[in-house]
């Protein structure tokens, strides 16, 4: 964690290209408190040689961002990272206008440094994504983009102004915005995570904004152009963010809070179709006011990486390696 930052939240992971010193980069927001005026976007990289995380540093500052955009940014929030077809890192960051998270917009930044090692990593804003007629409020990002075969990606976002609904934004391989489509008609579904079971058959799993809810689901059969609501999953969802990943066709993983009314337990579950899930592993089991939340997943270095917020103060991580080929199948083992 950067120095003097008692709060941290909403991590996102990015795999780095083979041959680079870093295997992956993690981004999150950090500062004196969530929605504080000095919150910035922090980053750290996992070094292949030392097998350790680097000392974190800040990479996006709202005052610098405001100067670059030409207008004020009141607060910074969730970041989401993606690498384009040219190897440049893109960041999509929640930036607010007047008001709280309901006045959020999504700022699109792109790597401006020639290299992407942590000491040199720098970003420049490309602009604010135009997502709403109402003064371009109130959309937020949370979960990782879904990579596409053409090199582009689909970025899941959600609208939050009274009602909440999820949407999908399409980008080309160079990161140019191509369009948007609404994922669900329900007014309480937010923070979608996208899972591709085939090239065109996708499942979106969402946080339920109601108390005592379940993980919400929607399906697309045409590669994200149109969506249809599905019945809620059997998985409990205590109004908390879920993070999903398609490791391979028919091998889907979901990180989610499974205890009713609390974020004290963080579990991994697996599925073949994105609808029926079975418990795989408990990442964290706390009690009382403990919170393990906002998970992010990534497959890299033949491992499943999981990062998550601990008590809104730090970002913790776990790494799970699969058994070598030919060995008897067994549950993924943790490798802290």
């Amino acid at each position, binding site marked *: 964690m950067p120095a003097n930052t008692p709060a941290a939240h909403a991590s996102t992971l990015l795999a780095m290209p083979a041959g680079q010193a870093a295997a992956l980069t993690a981004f999150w927001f950090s500062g004196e408190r969530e929605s504080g005026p000095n919150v910035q976007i922090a980053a750290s990289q996992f070094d292949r040689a030392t097998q350790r995380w680097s000392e974190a540093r800040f990479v996006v500052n709202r005052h610098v961002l405001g100067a670059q955009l*030409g*207008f*004020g940014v009141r607060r910074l929030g969730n970041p989401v990272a993606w690498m384009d077809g040219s190897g440049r890192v893109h960041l999509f960051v929640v930036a607010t206008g007047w008001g709280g998270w309901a006045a959020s917009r999504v700022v699109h930044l792109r790597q401006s440094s020639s290299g992407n090692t942590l000491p040199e990593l720098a970003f420049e804003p490309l602009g604010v994504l135009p997502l709403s007629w109402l003064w371009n409020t109130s959309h937020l990002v949370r979960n990782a983009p879904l990579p596409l075969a053409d090199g582009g990606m689909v970025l899941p976002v959600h609208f939050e102004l009274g009602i909440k609904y999820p949407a999908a934004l399409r980008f080309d391989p160079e990161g*140019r915005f191509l*369009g948007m*489509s609404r994922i669900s008609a329900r007014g309480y579904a937010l923070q979608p995570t996208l899972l591709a079971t085939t090239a065109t058959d996708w499942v979106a799993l969402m946080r339920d904004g109601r108390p005592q809810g379940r993980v919400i689901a929607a399906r697309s059969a045409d590669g994200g152009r149109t969506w249809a609501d599905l019945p809620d999953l059997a998985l409990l969802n205590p109004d908390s963010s879920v993070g999903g990943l398609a490791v391979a066709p028919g091998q889907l993983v979901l990180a989610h809070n499974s205890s009713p009314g609390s974020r004290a337990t963080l579990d991994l579950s697996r599925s073949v179709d994105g609808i029926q899930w079975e418990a795989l592993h408990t990442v964290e089991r706390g009690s009382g006011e403990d919170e393990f939340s906002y998970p992010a997943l990534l497959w890299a270095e033949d491992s499943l990486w999981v990062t998550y917020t601990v008590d809104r103060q730090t970002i913790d991580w776990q790494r799970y390696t699969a058994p070598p080929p030919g060995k008897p199948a067994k549950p993924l083992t943790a490798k802290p």
Partner: protein
Amino acid sequence: MNLDPGFVLAPAGGLLRYYLPLSWCVVLLGLLAWVSGRWPKPLRLLALGGLVVWCVLPGPYSPDYWLGLAFQMPSLSTVLLCAWLLWAALFPTPQPDCLAQANGSGWHLALGAAAVGLGWLLLLDTLALLPLELYALGFGPGANVFAMGLVLLSWIFGGRARLGWPVLALAPLVIVVFAASRLPTGNVWDALLDPWLWLVLQIWLVRNLWGRWTGR
């Protein structure tokens, strides 16, 4: 969802960097020009000059920094209307006051009502209360065709109603500028109408309908 990879959505290059401060400056100048209509000319010019100085101050010292934080960018319609107000104030002509002509004209009211209706549809769409994704459609080439249809309709009916040239020229000029620049956001609805203009049009529409109803 418009998924044509060859269809460029965003405004070109550094246009946005200049459009935001310039557009808000024009809007503020136009509004000041309108409210200062009865001021002595030297005072009016002094106020306008002072506003220009304020607008060119850097960063948070300029009003566009805060207007952009709160409201992003005005629509091309708002900017062009305010530019016309400013022009009319700086270079008054003996031609009839088009704003006065607009009050009470049936065709003006119809155009205003259409714009108000569009705003309501866009608001309902923002809250996901429409069965179609209206705002998203504004990015596609079909939206440009629809907007050109609006232009043709305004010419046909506006020509018949002898609408003043500012009203007649507004819609086609917005479409031309949008097609060339994709300002302000690449979405045609943002070019045609912003929430502040929509609110002002509603007030104008209600006042005029009330006036017609009461016979004033």
